[in-house]
């Protein structure tokens, strides 16, 4: 009588894209976490002759940039920054978007109309330009970058949650919860949100990928935290030696592409594994 679905993790690992994304991401996480132990040192420190090519010296396996800073130490530091900025800003976007979408979808009427106009306002302004303005207005730092990226990233989540809540609103179990005396806040929190969450998780993975790109772009423009070595900083610093030392931009670019790809693949996998209509196929 009872049927057991395999756990999400197992389903994800057997999913081609999802599994690849998850493994790739684990590798990146491991590097980011273990990096400072394996290659200790300040990424800003001039530790080698400038423009040392990868493989020339075993002490600096990935070479050095124009200032003689070790590239491997920089890349590992960049991984930490990228993951941190991506995760925290996406968390901000997910919370903001869920709150706005859920309240709008549940209440409907004027509150919904007002919140959706606000969402559209944010969607019509190019997100990167808005992020640049926000960071430039405040002092560039990791915190302002995280906040700015979070503030420009919520609209997609808000629209998604609103659509979910609208469709759940008319379902029998919501009505049933009302018949046993549940109030609005509790109804939203215990009945509607848990059912609306799976697509939010899937879209959040894509939001992280986009947030990482945005952070790199900000750092490339010199709007990153001046004390933090991020991938965008390395690419920005290496762009003048693009011909003589292309590996500086190339390696950090590859790191960026691989990380964004990992989150995209994971998002794809989560979307398939969390979608009950695709699950049975």
């Amino acid at each position, binding site marked *: *009588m009872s*049927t057991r679905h395999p756990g999400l993790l197992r389903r994800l690992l057997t999913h081609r894209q999802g599994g690849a994304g998850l493994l790739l991401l684990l590798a990146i996480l491991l590097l980011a976490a273990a990096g400072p132990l394996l290659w200790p040192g300040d990424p800003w420190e001039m530790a080698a002759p400038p423009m040392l090519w990868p493989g020339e010296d075993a002490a600096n396996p990935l070479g050095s940039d124009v200032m003689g800073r070790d590239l491997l130490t920089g890349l590992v530091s960049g991984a930490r920054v990228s993951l941190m900025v991506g995760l925290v800003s996406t968390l901000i976007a997910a919370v903001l978007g869920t709150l706005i979408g859920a309240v709008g979808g549940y209440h409907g009427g004027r509150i919904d109309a007002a919140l959706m106009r606000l969402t559209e306002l944010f969607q019509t302004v190019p997100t990167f330009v808005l992020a640049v303005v926000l960071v430039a207005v405040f002092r560039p730092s990791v915190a302002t970058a995280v906040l700015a990226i979070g503030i420009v990233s919520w609209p997609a989540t808000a629209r998604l949650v609103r659509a979910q809540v609208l469709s759940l609103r008319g379902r*029998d*179990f919501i*009505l049933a*919860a009302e*018949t*046993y005396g549940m109030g609005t806040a509790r109804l939203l929190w215990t009945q509607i949100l*848990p059912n609306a969450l799976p697509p939010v998780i899937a879209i959040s993975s894509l939001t992280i990928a986009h947030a990482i790109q945005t952070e790199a772009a900000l750092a490339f423009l010199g709007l990153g935290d001046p004390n933090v070595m991020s991938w965008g900083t390395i690419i920005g610093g290496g762009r003048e030696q693009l011909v003589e030392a292309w590996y500086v931009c190339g390696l950090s670019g590859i790191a960026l592409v691989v990380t964004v790809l990992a989150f995209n693949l994971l998002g794809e996998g989560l979307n398939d594994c969390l979608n009950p209509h695709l699950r049975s196929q």
Partner: protein
Amino acid sequence: MTMTLLEVSSLRTSFATRSGRLGILRDVSFAIARGETVALVGESGSGKSVTAASILRLVEAAGGRIDAGRVSFEGEDLLSLSPARLRALRGGRIGMIFQEPLSALNPVQRIGDQIAEAVRLHRPLSRRAAWGRAVELLSLVQIPAPGLRARDYPHQLSGGQRQRAMIAMALACDPALLIADEPTTALDVITQAQILSLLAELRDRLGMALLLITHDLGVVAGVADRIVVLYAGQVVEQGPVAEIFAAPAHPYTRGLLDAVRLDTLTPGTALPEIPGLVPPLDALPAGCAFAPRCGRADARCRSAAPPMPPGGARQAACFHPLPAPLPGGHAA
């Protein structure tokens, strides 16, 4: 009538449609005494479920509006209650179960958690105590291995078990009235019978009243004390089950009864049916709503709506009621 638990009088409920407000309930009155089982019977679209939703004031969320009438429960007027008091009554004194238990249970919450949640809304219990109460309720509705089943999600249970779980949730706080909206329609015949006998048993054991909403008179026969027949948003006949089954007074009730008396059929002949369809509510005939489908209707039925005679255990809104049976004989 000191024993009256629920009294619905002259209830009118309407819904907004593109072509204006549409009256779904057009004067519904009936009463339920403590511990009594009343069956609300009618075809699809007759207003049975809207009546239930109006009693608990759930129509408001669905875009409906109660225009007139009174619903009093244990002496309180439900239609003028504060939201907080209404929430306390819903699930506290009045429980409700639905037609399709799979869609009426939260798919991502364990059965036990859902029941515990319903308990904790009305009683100041700890999580652990509420979980204990949930398991107790599951065993009350005769689910085998209730401690294990409480950890299951709705999709892991069978249809009958889900309906039992739904009943357990509605019983969480010992309601005085249980509203069952087509509780067996989605179940197979064997499970139907089991759920009905469970409902009857629980009613007797817990001393609660039961409002059974159904289109199936077969369901009514064994469980209900009284029948209220709805047609196009109005009560057309009501009375004790035995009397109505023996001698329906309203031609519509008679038609409904003929449609379920399969034992009198000869194989190969067409199934008995009431000719025609329920009239659309925005195009009701001037007189009796049933007149276009009624073999007994005359000019008077088509021009004036027959009133419901006041009072009495047995009422039928008809100008030409069917004659009562001769003593010891069969109905005409």
